[in-house]
């Protein structure tokens, strides 16, 4: 039983990490470091949560799934354009803008949810959205095992990402912009357009990752806490996956497993017998990523031109 639960959580957390890390992968291959993934996830989660809240009862499951996915993706894409405008068109410091976006998303989501809650009931000053009824539409029950449609969608998007990145003209051009934008420009590729595409795709995948994250297990979300570092963990997954979709998927499974352990460790007798505080399991994914990064970063396969704003005039 607890083993089944572990598999269930591993799958859902792994799909979240994979989606968001793939998003980061597209952005970085175009040359833009997307540190704002955490914020993009929050906005995607907020859009999806509100969609579920308002659709609620009486709407058919297919409509719920479609609308929730659409709203989350759109929220992510719109929010990611904040990064695109600043870092591509105005050559802003990408780390700074990404950090600002993370802070902004937490504040914005809290303000929006609180305002909605207060308008409904003046005594409710919490930043919590409940979406229990809408969430049911996203889940498939096989006996006592639950799988989310979003996990299936994540696997499909993995295949699509692989093909898009390696087998299409677009993908190869995108990667050229992250490696050597000047050369790409000289053969007629519009670097700015490619960067925009990379960032917006990361918004798409990040937004979807956000809704997948908050529907993992719980049926209400406190928006004050954002997405608790999952966007950053995804960045570690992306680096560990060496910016390659298949490796990213494998890295996501590994990290997802450790994250899932912190949810269900008490169900395992031998783990419960260790009497470790819950914090130890919460820390685990971060410690592991730090160790992994320490051993793998020396031969990093990071896109060579990432983080440097492309300036046409310096060609």
């Amino acid at each position: 039983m607890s083993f089944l639960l572990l598999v269930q959580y591993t799958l859902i957390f792994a799909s979240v990490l994979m989606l968001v890390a793939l998003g980061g992968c597209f952005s970085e291959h175009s040359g833009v470091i997307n540190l704002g993934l955490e914020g993009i996830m929050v906005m995607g989660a907020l859009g999806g949560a509100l969609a579920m809240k308002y659709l609620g009862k009486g709407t058919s499951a297919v409509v719920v799934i479609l609308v929730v996915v659409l709203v989350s993706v759109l929220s992510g894409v719109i929010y990611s354009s904040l990064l695109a405008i600043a870092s591509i068109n105005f050559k802003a410091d990408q780390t700074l803008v990404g950090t600002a976006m993370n802070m902004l998303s937490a504040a914005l989501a809290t303000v929006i949810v609180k305002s909605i809650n207060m308008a409904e009931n003046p005594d409710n000053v919490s930043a919590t959205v409940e979406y229990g009824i809408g969430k049911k539409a996203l889940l498939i029950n096989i006996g006592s095992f639950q799988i989310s449609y979003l996990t299936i969608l994540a696997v499909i998007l993995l295949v699509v990402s692989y093909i898009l990145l390696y087998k299409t003209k677009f993908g190869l051009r995108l990667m050229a912009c992250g490696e050597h934008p000047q050369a790409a420009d000289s053969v007629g590729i519009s670097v700015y357009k490619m960067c925009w595409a990379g960032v917006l795709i990361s918004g798409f995948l990040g937004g979807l990752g956000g809704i997948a994250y908050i529907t993992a297990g719980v049926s209400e979300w406190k928006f004050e806490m954002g997405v608790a570092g999952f966007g950053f963990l995804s960045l570690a997954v992306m680096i560990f996956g060496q910016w390659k979709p298949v490796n990213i998927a494998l890295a996501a499974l590994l990290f997802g497993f450790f994250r899932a352990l912190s949810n269900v460790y008490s169900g395992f007798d031998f783990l419960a017998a260790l009497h470790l505080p819950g914090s130890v399991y919460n820390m685990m994914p971060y410690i592991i990523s730090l160790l992994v990064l320490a051993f793998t970063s020396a031969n990093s396969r990071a896109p060579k031109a990432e983080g440097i704003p492309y300036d046409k005039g310096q060609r």
Partner: protein
Amino acid sequence: MNTEKEKRTILANDGVQSFLTALLCIVIGLFVGFIVLLIISPQGAWEGIITILKNYFTYPSGPAKMKYFGNTLVKMAPLLLCALSIQFCYKAGLFNIGAAGQYVAGAGASLYGALALGLPWYVDVILAIVAGLVFGGIVGILKAYANVNEVISGIMLNWIGLYTVNMLLTGVKETASPYTVTLASTNESALLPNMGLDKLFTNNKYVTIAIPLAIIVAIVIQIILKKTVFGYELQATGYNKDAAKYSGMKEKKNIILTLMIGGALAGLGASFLYLTGYEQWSVTQSSVPVMGFNGIAATFLGGLDPIGTIFASYFIQHITSGGSYLDKAVYPSQVSDLISAIIIYLCGFVLFFKTVFNKRLNAKKGGEKA
């Protein structure tokens, strides 16, 4: 004619430009905040934005104003140190987003020293510095020897720090709440001394030597950056890492040392807040305190200058505190966090603002010649 020329040289001054662009960021940030208030409830929006800006001026009596002015200063001191931590590293080309975690480590170490070990304040402050230094040092060593990006390792350490400190302080929490026991009830010797400063602020007992010390630290950082060989090397590394290495500067040593100092500053900042007794640590908090991230706002708003950062830290804290005076039945206090976040976002455009500004200035000059 002469005054015209003078005006131009003033406008061409980098410091003046930084000030003007910071002002522009603030104005746009406040404007966006105002729009948000308008959307939530149009009636009280103007009053709301004035409330945020007024902060403690809301109180009618002078003594009350002074008392709450003191509270804003109490929280400004740690913010200033986090800002300096980020700034010091940024000068060397390192983005110390790990300041938030170094701050957490400092809070954990100083509170553990004070509450669990019963040590006096000066030892607790040193513990906080050491904890921050270790956290910063890990980032530095990973960067120098394993090529791990300091942003990523910093973020990972933020979370590791948070959970470690939560675990560490669980032993000294109140039985009925998730908060750590108060310093006043457990170990009064751990409270930072007031040195009579509390008298100036209507007996606000949270006003301690932390405030003047924070400002002194800012001045010391300014001196290190401007007047010492180490400061020069550090900034040279920031401008061009390879050139610095080529001219014989020990790049690896400088990276580690810079992040250690950065970490020590953030750790010290935490002790400046938690050892006043103004706040207790909640051992169930599941997100990293925003102080370290707000430091990013203060540092960039302050034009990456230690003295400018003193004023920027005050401003950021002023509007953050101001947010808590908003009519809670209508507006969420997080509107002021939103304003700070927008200000940081806009700081990304500073380079652009300055370029446009200089272009116009030069164009004017060129036109005059012709």
